[in-house]
């Protein structure tokens, strides 16, 4: 198990990369660091690899501090987004390099090189030099060189980010299958929600050097700790409505800023400022305008994504994204009714998940 304990990381005087960050990476887990560019994802990988040291705080392996161990005395295998390959060696030799360095027998090296080349779909380029490869092929060789050797931890920095869509899709499945088989400990960074959900045992959502939430894909999707996480997990992202709570019987009724009643929450929501309801695009059904119990909406942008459409629909001052079947025809400016599944509402107060709203932070 690896741990970052109270890690603060500054570059120079002004740039704070990580702020008092605590994180555990468990043995054998596929851990995905997900967040926007500049959130600190690569800094965490560099700390685990020993390429950089924490400004304050500690990096530990199985409880022992390794913060001051140089990279060569750690057992981490790394693949970077910007792949550095040996240009004078063939792909096969590049892949074999870490195994030769580890002194493996020749036959074993050959078996492993062929196996990994198969997994990555590059057997036909094994004899080429890196200069004769496409960008996507180079990135796969770099990934292969990292995962070909046994290592205590694999640190993969957006390793499939430069591949075309078809390859990315295929590599995602291959990588996950390989990780399961190897029972490897992997830390993987990405800026794609889909990739994070598809690959991870657990995801850490990073924002400006802070961890917003750590949990399984299902936890983050179903019970996001705050609006940042909620808007980051899921494709398309969750949308939000500002609401006000007013007492109603023993509960709080939630109203949009233009006075439409949207649902209820526990009475403790009454009087709270900064309430927002989060709704995923698949929790909304479009109905005839004026339908009882439905919010009034007006269609803005409609995106045709092939199998489905995403419509941006304004209600009051807010906008909701709604997924529809591809056949549903909506015109910008058209009025629609929005029926929202009350079991699928997420309530946030001041940006944080509304604490009193049990179970699973849903409002009823």
């Amino acid at each position: 198990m690896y741990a970052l304990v109270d890690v603060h990381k500054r570059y120079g005087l002004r740039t704070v990369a990580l702020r008092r960050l605590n994180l555990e990476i468990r043995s054998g887990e596929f851990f995905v660091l997900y967040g926007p560019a500049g959130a600190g994802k690569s800094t965490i990988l560099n700390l685990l690899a020993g390429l950089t040291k924490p400004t304050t705080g500690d990096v530990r392996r199985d409880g022992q501090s390794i913060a001051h161990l140089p990279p060569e005395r750690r057992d981490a295998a790394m693949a970077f987004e910007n792949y550095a390959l040996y240009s004078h060696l063939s792909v096969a030799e590049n892949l074999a390099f870490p195994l030769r360095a580890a002194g493996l027998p020749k036959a074993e090296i050959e078996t492993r090189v062929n196996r990994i080349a198969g997994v990555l779909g590059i057997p036909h380029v094994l004899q080429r030099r890196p200069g004769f490869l496409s960008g996507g092929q180079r990135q796969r060789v770099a990934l292969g060189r990292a995962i070909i050797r046994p290592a205590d931890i694999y640190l993969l920095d957006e390793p499939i980010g430069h591949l075309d869509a078809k390859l990315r899709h295929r590599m995602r499945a291959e990588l996950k299958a390989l990780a399961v088989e190897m029972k490897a400990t992997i830390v993987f960074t990405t800026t794609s929600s889909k990739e994070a959900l598809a690959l991870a045992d657990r995801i850490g959502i990073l924002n400006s050097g802070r961890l917003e939430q750590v949990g399984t894909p299902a936890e983050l999707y179903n019970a996001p700790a705050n609006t940042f996480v909620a808007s980051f997990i899921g494709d398309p992202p969750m949308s939000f409505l500002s609401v006000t709570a007013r007492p109603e019987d023993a509960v709080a009724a939630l109203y949009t800023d233009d006075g439409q009643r949207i649902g209820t929450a526990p009475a403790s929501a009454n009087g709270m400022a900064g309430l927002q309801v989060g709704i995923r695009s698949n929790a909304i059904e479009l109905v005839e305008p004026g339908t009882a119990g439905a919010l009034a909406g007006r269609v803005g942008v409609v995106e045709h994504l092939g199998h489905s459409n995403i419509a941006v629909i304004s209600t009051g001052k807010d906008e909701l994204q709604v997924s529809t079947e591809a056949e549903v025809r909506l015109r910008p400016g058209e009025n629609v009714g929005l029926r929202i599944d009350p079991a699928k509402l997420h309530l946030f107060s001041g940006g944080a998940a509304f604490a009193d709203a049990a179970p699973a932070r849903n409002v009823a």
Partner: protein
Amino acid sequence: MARITANKLVKRYGNFQAVHGIDFDIADGEFVAILGPSGCGKSSTMRMIAGLESVTEGQILFDGKPVNDIRARDRNVAMSFENYALYAPITVYENIAFPLRSAGKDQAEIDRAVRAVAEKMELTPLLGLKPGRLSSGQAQRVGLARALVRQPAVFLLDEPISHLDTRQRYRMRRFIKSIHQEFGHTMIYVTHDQEEALALADRVMVMSDGAIQQLATPPEVYSRPANAFVAGFVGEPPINFFDFTDGDENGLTIEGNRVSLTDPLRARIRELGPVGLAAIRPHFIRLGADSPVQLQGRGFITEELQDHNEIFVDVGSVRVSLIAPPGMKVARNETVTLSVDPDHLLLFPADVKVKAHSDDL
């Protein structure tokens, strides 16, 4: 704003022909995405429209007038490239005003135009800042504002959002689409990302090997792809391709599975002959034996994407992906039966290249 027409447009670099005599007609105010893998000719095409590349043969017309010999800066074309270089020493306001100042507009007009575009692009609070203080998303919006401020005849965008995270991509997409709805420019958007092309464009121009493969609305390129290349390039997750053999009126064989055909496909197979490519989208394959069209396979892996699962199954030598409801899974090497929706089976002539990844071509 302008209508953009290309007649037999050719671009050659030395002996290499990047664009092979293409024709298209983009209506005034239309939003067209040029979609294709790297090297397909999309950037050359855009650069010829912009006037950044000479036209080797053929013609480009703006509103019916040839522009081949008109210099880039006289075409009134706005461009926003992925590297939206802003001038660091001057404020956001001055960055946006720059093209108008160069054009010698008077201060009152400049001020009006800058404030109008800033308001529409939600940049008003940032006008006094220098670019160094902006987030990358903000800097990009400033780049777009600068391009839009001088009321261009056509607005060209070259993959401005491909490097953003999921949330930012959605924001920028909305934003670009709303710019189009607000300002109504003819817009041409060049991208390798099929989702962006479908989401944004009125029509998608799919290019490969220097030729237009299809120019049609997003639902058309998705549901009625003109050829196997378009079928493979458009759609997420990507379409599944199989080689078929023994095709005749009674059906065809896919990886050892005999598949019967619907009436329209029987007509199709008469044109194609006994061998070719069969394609089916992941959304039209199910786990289970509830369709007459079945494939036998072995489970590979299940991805749980929360709102749905994506399941990979090996059918013979083909790794098939399919979309399933949450909770449905396969185990590695488990024997599974897949049902294919026969109405959504697509048949194409045999073609080695479409099955490869564009990286491997």
